[in-house]
């Protein structure tokens, strides 16, 4: 099991919010993560990363000093900051089988979050069904998210062009009625 990257602090059927471990290695936008909960792995796609003050009533203020320099001079400031990230639930592992649809229940609060293994990314992106799920969720930057995740899945496959074409076709099919949206995603993955 790879190193833990966060812990869930809020859940919904379709997404969860987690707090990252530390400030140094937040998960990438469009990366695949999994929550270990109730003996099941629930997969999510990171669509929002958010760094903020730990006290909602105290906003961070500008110091005019470069970040690493600031943390060196005043290490306590880092203690007042946290990184949160939101992930859309795109599937789960059911007795060894990866299912690209919503699990019966979301992961529980305080479950730990891990980055997905390479094989899991390959399995999850095999049929690109997850793009359909994220397109259905309101308020997501679908175009950017789809493009980022496809690029990632492609690089996990050693930049396999055939996969890229297949993914593009899936996008074109899925967003048949929204040609401009499909077009902008395809443009983002083509170069």
């Amino acid at each position, binding site marked *: 099991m790879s190193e833990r990257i966060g812990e869930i602090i809020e859940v919904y059927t379709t997404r969860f919010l987690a707090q990252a471990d530390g400030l140094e290695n937040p998960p990438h936008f469009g990366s695949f993560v999994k929550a270990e909960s109730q003996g099941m792995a629930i997969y999510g796609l990171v669509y929002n990363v958010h760094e903020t003050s730990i006290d909602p009533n105290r906003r961070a203020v500008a110091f005019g000093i470069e970040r690493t320099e600031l943390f060196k001079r005043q290490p306590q400031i880092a203690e007042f900051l946290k990184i949160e990230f939101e992930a859309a639930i795109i599937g789960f592992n059911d007795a060894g089988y990866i299912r690209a649809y919503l699990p019966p229940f979301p992961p529980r609060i305080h479950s730990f979050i891990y980055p997905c293994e390479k094989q899991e990314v390959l399995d999850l992106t095999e049929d690109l069904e997850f793009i359909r799920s994220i397109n259905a969720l309101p308020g997501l930057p679908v175009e950017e998210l789809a493009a980022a995740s496809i690029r990632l899945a492609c690089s996990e496959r050693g930049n396999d062009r055939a996969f890229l074409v297949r993914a593009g076709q899936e996008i074109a099919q899925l967003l048949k009625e929204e040609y401009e949206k499909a077009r902008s995603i395809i443009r983002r993955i*083509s170069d």
Partner: protein
Amino acid sequence: MKDKAQEIGKLIAGSLLSGLEAKLNEDINVEGISVGRLIVVDGRENKFFCLLKDVSLEATNEDILLNPPSGDFARQVHAGVNTFYKLSVQPMLITAQNPTDLDRPRPSTTVPPHFSPVCEASAEDVSLIFGAPGITNPEIGSPIFMEVPVCLNLERFCKRSNAIFGKSGSGKSVLARMVLGYLIKSDMAINLVFDMHNEYGWSATNEGGIDDPSLKQLLGSKVAIFTVDSNSPLYRKIRADYDVQIPYGAVEIADLELAAGELGLTQAGIETMYRLADKWGEDKWLAKFLDMDTDEFPQVVEDLKVNEQALNKLRRCLDRLKKLPFIRKEVADDTVNRIMDFIQDGKHIVFQFGRYNSMLAYILVANILTRRLHKLYVDKTDSARADGVDGPKPLVVTIEEAHKFLDPQVARQTTFGTIAREMRKYNMVLLLIDQRPSGIDDEVLSQVGTRIIGDLGDERDINAVLTGLPNQGTLKVLINNLEPRQFLLTGFALPMPVVIDAKDYGKFCSEISLGSGIILDEIERRKTVDELKAQVYGDDQIIFD
């Protein structure tokens, strides 16, 4: 040889009436799919044999047309999803998926279910439809882009009048020669060919300017050459079998009427002819009139109450007959009886015109002989029926420039029109060869059994050849796309329309004369003659200034 046909698409829509529509698979190159191909749709229980009639570009979304994807990647991605190619195919025949020997393809009366695989026809499919080559089912070409024989069912072919259409250079003469060659070889019917352009007898010059062997060379003694010009240099090497002469008495006014354009006859002239025939007798007037001195005309005008000017004009027109030495007062032998003798002997006749290959000579000879032959055939068939015995041998009369005889204005009266309409009632059918089918009467065209259609430039001609056929829209597209030596075959002798690349003539020659050795004999004979000449005249080259 069981080769699995490649799937090229899936059926998505259509009807029996307007044809089926299939979506082309994304991995198939649309540029490799061309109209006229034979297509098989694999239904659940049946195979549907279809003709590809159109390929079109389609888009599922208007937006993609307004903002076309840029770059190869985007085009590749949208292909098959937002853009696709649609194949329009016309179902023609249907047969069981695993046909027994008794199952013959029959006309399609239903359509295959949604998303049935659409494949190109395999060699096996083609031979299932068109049968295996044989003496009465010879191969005359292969479907375009395929190397499988398409065979013509000669038994059915001989039961109707047929036609070969195509503009000059389309290869129709070569194909006609092949069809005739196979007909002769198979002995399904006796052939009488009115060979206006000297193409079906001895050698024929092909497009490349090289002499191809023709029927006489290939089939030897089975073919007899009849000519009206036995003195022509043409017959120096190969003697004509019979020298045709026609007496004036055999020329009817109707024959002259048919050649009115060539003779320059006016309506007044035709009426004058009828007056003359009334008074002097139908079989005597022409000889008498042509013999008469112009001084005697006033007497005739007085006797017959005809217009003098018309009479003079008529004489000038009919004087042209004198330039045709084979139409004469007295003849030694009756040509028609001689033809019948040859027919009874099972010999096939090619009529040639030598140097008299004018339309006038052609129209007169073909019409006069065919009319008398038809009468003879009607009599013989009727008496054979009365006696309950076999009638005369089936006869196929081949005429070139068929529109001259089957013009809408004359087709109802000419013998050719009658033969075309009465089909094989009297064991006599026509094979029309023409480059101007729009000049042929509609009623005759609709009676044509099998049509072999080559490239036709004119829209009117294309419409004319389709007279009386189903699925005209489809066939029209196919005709428009024909190249030289490609033909659309449709009608009675074919189970379904098919576009073919005509068989190679060399292949035909070697097939047809196999065993007869006639070409080799002829080469040997010519060589002997040349050697003889060399001995007599020496080897000196003769130089003409």
